[in-house]
């Protein structure tokens, strides 16, 4: 990526973060921490990587994205709205009665959402099914599934991982948003997740470790994943939970809490200042 391209990605990612905060603030609930950590990778996927068209969201040849850590949908909704799937006005009524945008992704009613998710662990299996369908139909679309680090405590993740490598699903790329925190604390204090790379290696995956808040590293990982044949890839992306909002960064308390009016103003001011700086 050229410096100019990186700058463009950073601007979009900043807007994704702004709309994430708008959504969660107006909903008075939701999950800002993991949305902000994943914002750069979702931006890259929707604005550079994936073959998708907001005017044709059901195209059978499109790439698929499953947000297995469904609670981080504020960032997904922001990316989809900025991409043109629906108006950003929808984000202002996220989680409200009658709103299209649900507290967790709903594929039936939200254009661009490829799988309903929210119950952790389940999206990985669905992504396997999508990748398998692609193999059966001899289509060359790719399937991306993003999961949380804490989510890897779910047994179903490993059932799905075993299945993915057994079926040689090299059109499947998992991305673990490794921000290190889950509701009850640090992932390694809660359930001893590490060594996660060795676990996935043992399950037959190509493992790539990156800084998930760095666009160059995101790009090179996703490019490399496309060259891997005969097995699935997992990108373990170290990220900062709450990235972009100073008081949320690396704070476990911001996993699933909305900012109050004062906190909201600080967050939006900070993100707007970052955007202004990027726009020069």
């Amino acid at each position, binding site marked *: 990526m050229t410096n100019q391209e990186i700058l463009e990605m950073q601007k979009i990612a900043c807007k994704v973060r702004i709309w994430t905060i708008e959504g969660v603030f107006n909903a008075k609930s939701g999950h800002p921490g993991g949305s902000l950590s994943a914002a750069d990778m979702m931006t890259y996927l929707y604005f550079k990587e994936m073959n998708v068209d907001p005017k044709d969201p059901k195209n059978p040849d499109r790439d698929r994205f499953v947000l297995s850590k469904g609670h981080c949908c504020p960032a997904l909704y922001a990316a989809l709205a900025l991409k043109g799937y629906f108006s950003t006005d929808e984000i202002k009524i996220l989680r409200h009665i009658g709103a299209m945008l649900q507290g967790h992704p709903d594929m039936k009613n939200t254009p661009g959402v490829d799988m309903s998710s929210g*119950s952790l662990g389940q999206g990985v*299996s669905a992504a396997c*099914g999508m990748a*398998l*369908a692609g193999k059966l139909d001899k289509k060359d679309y790719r399937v991306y599934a993003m999961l949380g680090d804490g989510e890897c405590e779910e047994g179903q993740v490993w059932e799905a991982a075993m299945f993915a490598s057994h079926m040689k699903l090299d059109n499947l790329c998992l991305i673990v948003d490794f921000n290190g925190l889950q509701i009850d604390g640090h992932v390694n204090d809660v359930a001893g997740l590490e060594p996660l790379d060795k676990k996935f290696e043992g399950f037959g995956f190509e493992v790539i470790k990156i800084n998930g808040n760095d666009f160059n590293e995101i790009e090179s990982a996703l490019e490399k994943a496309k060259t891997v044949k005969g097995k699935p890839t997992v990108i373990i992306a170290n990220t900062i939970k709450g990235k972009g909002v100073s008081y949320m960064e690396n704070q476990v308390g911001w996993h699933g809490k909305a900012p109050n009016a004062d906190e909201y103003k600080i967050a939006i001011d900070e993100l707007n200042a970052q955007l202004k700086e990027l726009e020069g």
Partner: protein
Amino acid sequence: MKIATRESFGRALCELAKTHPDIVVLDADLAAATKTDIFKKEYPDRFFDCGISEANMIGVSAGLAACGKVPFAASFAMFATGRAYEQIRNSVGYPHLNVKIAGSHAGISVGEDGATHQCCEDLALMRTIPGMVVLNPADHYEMTEAVKAAYEYDGPVYIRLGRLAIDTFNDPDTYKFELGKGITLKEGNDVTVIATGLIVNEALKAVRALEEKGINARLINIHTIKPIDKDIIIKAAQETGRIITVEEHSIIGGLGEAVCSVTSEYCPVTVKRIGIDDIYGHSGPALGLWAEFGLDAEGLEKRIVELMK
């Protein structure tokens, strides 16, 4: 002809797959038992063994359905609907994906394997999921047609299969399966017996025996537990004044309570439920267990007479 409905299921899938290339079949290391191995032999490229991981199997099915396939996912009823309940609810039911779930070895007629494998809760669990169609066919011919109907319905379907080989009683020349419609197997106005699944055959023998003793019972076969046929139940309640339900399932949450929910709202009459009371089963030969639990023809006959007193 004696044949288990799991065998009928495997054969029907295989037949249907000839003309419907979108059908794929998944199993969780029980293909030889659920009889999806019949399909596997014929269509190895469209069969996927997920190993002993029912939760993943249901999720993979959801992903396949999201890409236009029509997956039939099979396991024992206990594990398909019990272990993977939440996957069915959230990954299949909520997005209303076109996944067909087959639960074999249902009820106590699993026999010797005992309580851990005798699922008497599957119908109850599946009934609670919005948009889920719940089928419990009674014999070979009914199962064959039910599989076709499940395929034709666009959305999630649960089909209950039995282990035990049982006599066919439907006439293949006249049999007609209509999703959501009960079938009157015998007319009568003294009482209505409403039965479902493998036990329908036993109920049929029981009501015929009762006729010789002067009790003229109506017998209705409910193959679609959900959506249930309200009309046939209301009519039976109005015309016979009392109903006895018979199922190889917990009396909690199955056919009996589905019938009660119709009668209590539209035509309150006394409904007595025969099934598995609020207890677990145990090991033993299938027919011996049916007799012990009062679900064989003889037992049903006795209990119907008692309940009518």
